[in-house]
């Protein structure tokens, strides 16, 4: 009886938190301009991700650099390498997403 009640509560909690995670799906967008890579991180409703961790990986999945988004959800850095880059935003609480920046786009923005 007690176990089943705990299980039910647990299920409710998981359903609820799954819903929250979905409604708060985080996004990162990146573009290259003037030798720098600019990122902006946001929730679908337009709120910016403040203090989120941005990690930049090259095509061999090596971590190149790491930074924190400002109050406007922005984080910019000089081009670390001309390569296919994967930029990951981690807003905590399992809110994570990535953006692929193609080598050609990085090259074009040098």
């Amino acid at each position, binding site marked *: 009886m007690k176990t089943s009640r705990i299980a039910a509560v647990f299920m409710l909690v998981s359903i609820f938190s799954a819903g929250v995670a979905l409604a708060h*799906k985080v*996004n990162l*967008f990146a573009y290259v301009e003037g030798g720098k890579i600019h990122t902006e991180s*946001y929730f679908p*409703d*337009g709120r910016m991700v403040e203090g989120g961790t941005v990690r930049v990986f090259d095509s061999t999945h090596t971590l190149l650099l790491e930074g924190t988004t400002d109050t406007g959800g922005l984080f910019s850095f000089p081009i670390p390498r001309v390569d296919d880059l994967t930029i990951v935003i981690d807003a905590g609480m399992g809110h994570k997403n990535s953006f*692929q920046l193609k080598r050609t786009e990085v090259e074009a923005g040098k």
Partner: protein
Amino acid sequence: MQTCKSMLSTVAATWLMLAAVPAFAHFGAVIPSDDIITQADAKTVTLEVKFIHPLEQHYMEMVKPKQFGVMHGGQKSDLTAALKAAKGGGPDQTGKFTFWTAGYDIRRPGDYTFFVEPTPYWEPAEDLYIVHYTKVCVNALGLEEGWDAPVGLETEIVPLTRPYGLWTGNLFTGQVLLKGKPVPHAEVEIEYLNASPGNISVVLPPADPYVTQVVKADADGIFSYAMPKAGWWGFSALNEADWTIDHEGMKKTVEIGAVYWVRTRDMR
């Protein structure tokens, strides 16, 4: 007597001809190649700008629009120069008619509301000019912001339902504005675009009233309609302009339409 008879028959013939003119609804159309652009998609949206009978798949000749633009992040950009003429026609139409296409490169996340102000179209059958201010929204890269903002056209439909990511059967709710103010009890015509990409079966209306659906807005100009099939749906609210256009020395009425297009997909 003879004259009277022939006059009568002329009147009858005219009446018959008038009655025979089908009451097809004209729709301004702006249809993008996709309504949602994700990270994996090509970032160029191709748009087709037409003046059509959406269900009958009839084209009308369209001269170059007065204005074609996009609003993103509250900023409007003029894209009129990007329009290129193309020719098209419906399956039961002889001849080809001009419509317009444009490519647009999405560079940033957010909602892009494309809008068209066509050059007034002279419709002799109705003895008036038609100007349909037409809009469509394309969402890009996960940022769902901007779709509910009016563009500021003379008349326009502002969606109250997010206008993308819609399932077949969803209710679309919008508000009809004229000079920025709601139009109480506006009549809204709705048609399915039979030429929708991926339409698996062309809709053959069993009777004329099926061609154009009609709903009336409430006192705040708000209307709703549930879309029963996957594809593109056009919503058109018609009003009479408080200005006229001269046609062969006569002042003619101008029908101004607020048109909005949305796409639905089947749940599966």
